[in-house]
């Protein structure tokens, strides 16, 4: 097992565009998720009381309840967005445990793209709920002196989101690869079990933090 930390090997070229393994993995995960959700939707329409439909309803309801607990109001759009983030990141992390698959979230490019989406959705949500002036005014409170600090905090938390997810997933696989090369075949199994937990936990944390950031932008002028 080769060590892969910052590099992202090119799988093949599609015309002039290089297609990396990360792009392949994330596209595959997206297609599998869309297929699963399509099946769940059909099952919800045909048999609303079946096992699959009940589990799907429980997932959606727990997402809604979490958003309600965090922001204090019901936000179906925010619940959709955070739930999609959680499901995609968790699936990518878990797919990385399959043999031969390198997780898409173990590459800095993927996590930067996800963090950039969260970064862009904060002003989008703020402008959507308060208008342009209302959103821009939120940068000037409680004092216009705080403007640089607001800007720095938005930038640094985006960087932290990207590097946190990347570092956790990449370091988990690095430890497994080192243990395989040092000790042997079955030694890293407990570490891989821990990686499963960390993968779910990091996806949860990413979604929660995105919700907190967007929720703060939505409710900034609520008082």
């Amino acid at each position: 097992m080769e060590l892969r930390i910052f590099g992202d090997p090119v799988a093949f070229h599609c015309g002039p565009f290089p297609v990396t393994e990360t792009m392949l993995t994330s596209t595959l995960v997206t297609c599998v998720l869309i297929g699963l959700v399509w099946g769940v939707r059909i099952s919800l329409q045909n048999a609303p009381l079946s096992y699959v439909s009940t589990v799907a309803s429980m997932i959606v309801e727990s997402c809604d309840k979490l958003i309600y607990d965090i922001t204090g109001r019901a936000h179906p759009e925010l619940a959709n967005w955070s739930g999609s983030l959680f499901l995609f990141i968790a699936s990518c992390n878990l797919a990385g445990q399959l043999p031969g698959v390198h997780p898409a979230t173990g590459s800095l490019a993927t996590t930067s793209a996800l963090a950039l989406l969260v970064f862009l959705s904060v002003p989008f949500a703020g402008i959507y709920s308060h208008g342009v002036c209302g959103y821009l005014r939120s940068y000037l409170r409680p004092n216009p002196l705080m403007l640089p600090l607001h800007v720095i905090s938005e930038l640094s938390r985006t960087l932290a989101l990207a590097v946190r997810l990347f570092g956790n997933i990449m370091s988990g696989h690095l430890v497994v690869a080192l243990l395989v090369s040092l000790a042997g075949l079955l030694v890293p199994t407990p570490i891989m079990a821990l990686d499963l937990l960390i993968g779910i936990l990091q996806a949860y944390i990413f979604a929660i933090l995105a919700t907190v950031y967007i929720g703060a932008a939505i409710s900034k002028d609520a008082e």
Partner: protein
Amino acid sequence: MNEHTILAAATILAAAFVMAVGAVGAAYGESRIGAAAMDALARQPDEASSITRMLFVSLAMVESTAIFCLVIALILLFANPFTGGSGG
């Protein structure tokens, strides 16, 4: 002991130092968070779900400093801009 050897030794020492100091800070912070969460759980077991959620979020925030240190150490070791980034 040419220039390259000195650079390699300094890189390894710096990576070890970064990781050690970063781990100490994050471990101390996480232990404080864990102790405070245990305290809060013992006082108010009914709020377990919200306390656990905030516990995980704050643990992740604190742990991200250690992860930053790990990433910097790995950059120093595997993608060092001064040695041409030999992926060794």
